[in-house]
């Protein structure tokens, strides 16, 4: 039997899925034990128990200086920034994307501009953002929007352009106006694809969030990581990295679930297509 036709059964599949995690964890534990054997106060690769202690300290007890639960405060601040920025970026992506994809005048006027703007590295704009919008929330949210929105616009425009022209013609022969075509033909088919695109942008969105928080902040997951980096508190950093990964993973799963529930036809089409 050819290799491409061999499939693991359910149990083997699960073990194979776990295997890379176990390998990485094992490599970490070996490295950590070796370093700790040499220097019990080593900060670079903390033991699992000191990661647990860091989690306990950050997530389940109050900070003696401020009386806050730091991880909760940080998570709230970061998720607020992320949610606000993604909401704005999705709105921009949807409106401009459909306009550029569907309306020749918009495509002529904005298509090239968006294509160029999407090539500007957002992090290079950060100093300008801080000077024009200040060090507060606005510039952090703006950075994420600038980073994410052009990709969403371009992706939505491409998807709209991919819609079969027969649909547009059929809708027009049935007497639909442009606005009705947008609402009844384009939008329902674009939304699930927008969710796909958004899922791919969650990683970059976190990157921009953390970069913005590294520069000036009072709270946030990225802020804390750069703060404790000052004294090499890898126990806190690793705990936060795992937490951020988990949050990003849950956001991804949440969007996938939303897509399946809200647009069941799309998943069915993808499965057969």
């Amino acid at each position, binding site marked *: 039997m050819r290799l491409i036709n061999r499939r693991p059964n359910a149990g083997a599949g699960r073990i194979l899925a776990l295997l890379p995690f176990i390998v990485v964890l094992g490599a970490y534990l070996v490295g950590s034990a070796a370093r700790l*054997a040499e220097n019990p106060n080593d900060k670079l690769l903390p033991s699992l128990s000191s990661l647990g*202690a860091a989690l306990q300290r950050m997530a389940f007890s109050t900070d003696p*200086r401020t009386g806050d639960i730091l991880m909760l405060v940080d998570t709230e601040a970061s998720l607020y920034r992320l949610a606000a920025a993604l909401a704005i970026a999705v709105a921009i992506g949807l409106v401009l994307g459909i306009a550029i994809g569907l309306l020749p005048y918009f495509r002529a006027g904005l298509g090239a501009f968006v294509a160029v703007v999407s090539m500007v590295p957002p992090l290079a704009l950060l100093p300008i953002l801080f*000077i024009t919008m200040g*060090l507060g929330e606005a510039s952090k949210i703006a950075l994420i929007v600038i980073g994410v929105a052009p990709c969403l616009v371009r992706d939505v425009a491409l998807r709209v352009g991919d819609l079969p022209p027969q649909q547009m013609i059929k809708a027009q022969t049935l007497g639909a106006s442009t606005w009705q075509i947008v609402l009844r033909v384009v939008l329902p088919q674009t939304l699930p694809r927008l969710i796909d695109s958004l899922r791919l942008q969650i990683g970059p969105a976190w990157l921009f969030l953390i970069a913005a928080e590294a*520069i000036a902040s009072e709270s946030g997951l990225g802020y804390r990581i750069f703060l404790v980096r000052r*004294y*090499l508190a890898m126990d806190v950093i690793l705990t936060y990295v795992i937490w951020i990964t988990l949050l990003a993973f849950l956001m991804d799963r949440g969007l996938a679930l939303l897509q399946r529930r809200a647009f069941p036809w799309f998943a069915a089409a993808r499965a057969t297509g």
Partner: protein
Amino acid sequence: MATALAFSFAGSADAAPKKDFKLAWSIYVGWMPWQWAAEQRIVKKWADKYGISIDVVQVNDYVESINQYTAGGFDAVTLTNMDGLSIPAAGGIDTTALLVGDFSNGNDAVILKDKTALADIKGQKVNLVEFSVSHYLLARALASIGLTERDLSVVSTSDADMVAAWATPEVTAVVTWNPLVAEIIATPGANKVFDSSQIPGEIIDLTAVNTETLKDNPAFGKALAGAWYETMAIMSSDTPEGKAAREAMGKASGTDLAGYEAQLKATRMFFKPDEAAAFAKSPEIGATMDHVRSFLFDHGLLGNGADSADVVGIELADGKVLGDTGNVKFRFTDAYMADAAAGKL
């Protein structure tokens, strides 16, 4: 018991004599001499004398240089007394302050916009590099007028963005260091309300060495001390050669001769090894380190499960220990500076 055995074993494994050493330094008025000494081959001259080699490496990011040293990538590093205690020492890397280069005597400052008294800082947002010597200076400034950090809020801001941040309307108070202080003070409305000359001798700039490495290779310490004080003698001299050295150091730190000399004025450099040795041995160091360790402990910077400021022992030059005598990780010594003063290198 097992860890103790493993530790002593690792310790003895490290004890193999070395020939090649690495020193990390970053840009600061008091550390610029290292680069100049390397370029002028003064470091090489002294290393050759002891039959070793010393690689002087500039690290762009100060904290990164300390982290690299703590991780074992360097044998020596330039840092402040406070960062020496909170990063390598709290991380279990036994570190010796080989050379006391200078202390900040006005280089670090609290600056307010449109306000002239330190007490006006109450209720403001203060932008600074959190947990740095700026933060320490702020804590000492507040203590001097009976305020605490609860009377204001601290906004962590990268030093790279401090000047740009000052230009925005919402930033009204900053704590930072030179050359940023000079740049900010030059803008209208900026008032220096407290600086490190009001806590002289507390923010100390050191060249620190891994204690284990130093114990097994005293030649490394001797070569560093020899190169350092030869450089100090040249740069402090009122000769064309001295001026050229200062000019080169100023250029390398992004300013010019005048700018560099202005920074030197706010820095108490120990050009002479006997002065440095006397300062390292003075009782003030013990009092300073006591302030520093309680600041670090209050801010949770002495590592995991530190239940008091005593958790990391600090050995002073006279052999007295602050804190846990069983966990001495930060040491002051005047030995190498005294040798340099006595011409025994």
